[in-house]
């Protein structure tokens, strides 16, 4: 036991004395996770869409549409000239530009009653943001319908438009019975427009057409997830897993270097078995990986508002992932021919593993076949398990399958490494 503990102690001292390894294992995952977390929405509930507004129509309707768009909390509207808006969208500074053309308000009012051509609103959009275009179209439709109908049914412009339309329809009604019916309807509208309000002012109703329903949006993850989705939680899980696996590579390379330098033989010349030396290295690797993941998540909790829903679940996940990392290091050391070649191959393998595991992009964004396929990748279980005990708000039992699968992979890797070491 003295020898076993001494070997673990040696590895811990060596790791702490290696500043480069510490920086790579701690600072980099935190910085990159912060970046990815912010990119995917951070901890905010929603984020407004950047939209440029080119308001060429300065009529009352045009002004009201512009004001309505600016007041929409889902949009962040920047008024720009046409040339600037065009440039901003091309550069990607704005996702969509709405161009309200001259005379839009009047033309839209006329078109509402079917007596004129429908005016066109140009939408300039970034081709990489087709989904945003659809969202902006929806919000614009709501604004235009609301403002134009309100103006037509109660505004001054609407009254003038009704008067003019009635005059035109009077002419047509002599020969066309359908126009007579429309004239009668417009006459009723005119009567409605001139109804006095309760306080005696001569104005019709001020609200136009609006969506006949609202939605009640509720985030659903799991029972205890009161905090809602926090993109930082997934980002810290992904980057934590990635960079701790890099530490696992370093651990494996360290063994290869020790074998090359003769230190490994010197250890085995002592009264300790190969299995003891390997187990001690695995134990120290697992302790380091566990500690790193805890520190990374401590920063996530205190610096980025990530919520750990189940502390026992998180500790269990971190321990299992630590064991997985250590066993990966042993496999690299066992099968690596030279430290240089092994590092390149292991880096590639780990990058593929973390990519397929959903460290960069959440796995639920993958196509269905890939989601099924990546169940065979241990990092998928590590990241899904960490997601479960953080933003999904599940308990330790829910993460137990992820823990079990990681330990299964660790056992497989460990046995493979031991077999190869003993053969060598």
């Amino acid at each position, binding site marked *: 036991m*003295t*020898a076993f503990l*001494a070997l673990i102690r040696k590895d811990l001292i060596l790791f702490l*004395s290696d500043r480069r390894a510490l920086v790579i294992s701690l600072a980099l995952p935190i910085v990159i996770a912060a970046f990815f977390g912010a990119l995917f929405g951070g901890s905010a509930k929603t984020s407004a869409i950047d939209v440029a507004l080119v308001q060429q129509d300065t009529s009352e309707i045009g002004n009201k549409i512009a004001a309505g768009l600016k007041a929409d909390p889902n949009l962040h509207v920047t008024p720009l000239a046409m040339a600037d808006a065009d440039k901003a969208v091309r550069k990607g500074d704005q996702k969509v530009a709405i161009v309200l053309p001259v005379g839009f308000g009047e033309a839209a009012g006329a078109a509402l009653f079917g007596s004129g051509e429908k005016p066109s609103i140009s939408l300039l959009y970034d081709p990489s943001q087709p989904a945003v275009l659809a969202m902006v179209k929806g919000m614009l439709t709501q604004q235009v319908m609301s403002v134009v109908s309100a103006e037509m049914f109660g505004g001054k412009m609407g009254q003038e438009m009704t008067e003019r339309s009635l005059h035109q329809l009077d002419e047509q009604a002599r020969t066309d019975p359908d126009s007579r019916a429309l004239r009668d309807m417009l006459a009723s509208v005119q009567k409605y427009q001139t109804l006095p309000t309760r306080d005696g002012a001569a104005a019709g109703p001020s609200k136009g057409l609006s969506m006949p329903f609202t939605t009640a949006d509720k985030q659903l993850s799991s029972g205890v997830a009161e905090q809602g989705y926090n993109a930082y939680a997934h980002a810290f899980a992904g980057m934590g897993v990635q960079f701790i696996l890099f530490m696992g590579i370093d651990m494996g390379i360290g063994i290869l270097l020790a074998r090359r*330098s*003769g230190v490994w033989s*010197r250890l085995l*010349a002592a*009264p300790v078995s190969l299995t003891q030396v390997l187990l001690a290295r695995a134990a120290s690797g697992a302790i380091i990986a566990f500690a790193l993941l805890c520190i990374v998540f401590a920063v996530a909790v205190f610096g980025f508002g990530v919520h750990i829903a189940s502390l026992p679940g998180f500790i269990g996940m971190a321990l299992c992932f630590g064991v997985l990392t250590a066993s990966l290091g042993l496999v690299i050391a066992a099968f690596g021919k030279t430290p240089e070649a092994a590092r390149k191959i292991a880096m590639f393998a780990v990058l593929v593993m973390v990519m397929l595991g959903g460290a960069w992009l959440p796995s639920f964004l993958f196509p269905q076949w890939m989601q099924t396929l990546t169940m065979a990748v241990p990092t998928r279980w590590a990241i899904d398990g960490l997601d479960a005990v953080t933003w999904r708000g599940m308990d330790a039992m829910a993460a137990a399958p992820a823990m079990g699968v990681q330990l299964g992979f660790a056992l497989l890797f460990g046995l493979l490494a031991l077999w190869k070491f003993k053969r060598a």
Partner: protein
Amino acid sequence: MPTVLLSVTNLVKNYGARRAVDGVSFRVLAGQTLGLLGPNGAGKSTIVGMLCGLLAPDGGDIVLGGERVAPGAAAVKRKIGVVPQDLALYEDLSALENLRLFGALYGLRGKLLAERIDKVLGQVNLADRARDKPVTFSGGMKRRLNIAAALMHDPQLLILDEPTVGVDPQSRNAIFDTLEALQAQGKALIYTSHYMEEVERLADHIVIIDHGKVLADESPASLHSRLAAQAALRVELAEPAHASLLDGLRSQRGVTSLNADGGALDIGLAQAADALPVMGWLQQAGCRPLHFATARTSLEDIFLNLTGRTLRD
């Protein structure tokens, strides 16, 4: 009569179809220093690997103090100290931490561990650098720390595999002082080196190995007696030696061999005392020696005589 500490009997090791060690046998007595010599590829490292319990022999036995040495034999490994040819140190751990680790590997802890660290640091003159990392040490200091790590558990037998490679003369001398002090304490040593003068200085028994077999297993004095020439005389003449002079020289009493290169003559002598008459004969023959020197036949001469002069890369 000294007791046998280590007994190696008919040791065999194969690497695939190649037999690296072929029936090697030798013994090390308690307190004895055995020099293990052999050209590159002779099988020395394989034998050392088996002696340290790193490799399992395919045949034969290694018995130390009544216990069989094998990779899994932990108890017998506690009796062996290993100083590998490569520096087996953690460069980023302090000297103290390195010794603490190697001591703990042999089960030392607490007060005993601290005492042994102090003792071995004193033995290798590194007490004042205990808290420094080997990465800041000179080559010689690293070699001494390498030896200190092997001494931590106070082994009965110390195996040193070329422990002076790449060190300056002062450090080499310091290492010899340490090893001679260990000899004085009655420790048994197995010493391998390419430096024959080191083995000559330290060893009281020599085993020469080549192609996996023992070529010689005897004392240095016995090895010297194997050669006809016990001394050498080197003479540098003013003019190149002519054939009749060389024939005359060969016929002189005590001359066992002669090599001539222009005016330079290498004359093998049966004994050192034969040098004076040979010099007198050269003078009478009208030769004008510019320079001359006598030397005892070296272990290197014996080694080359036994193993040949073919390169072993």
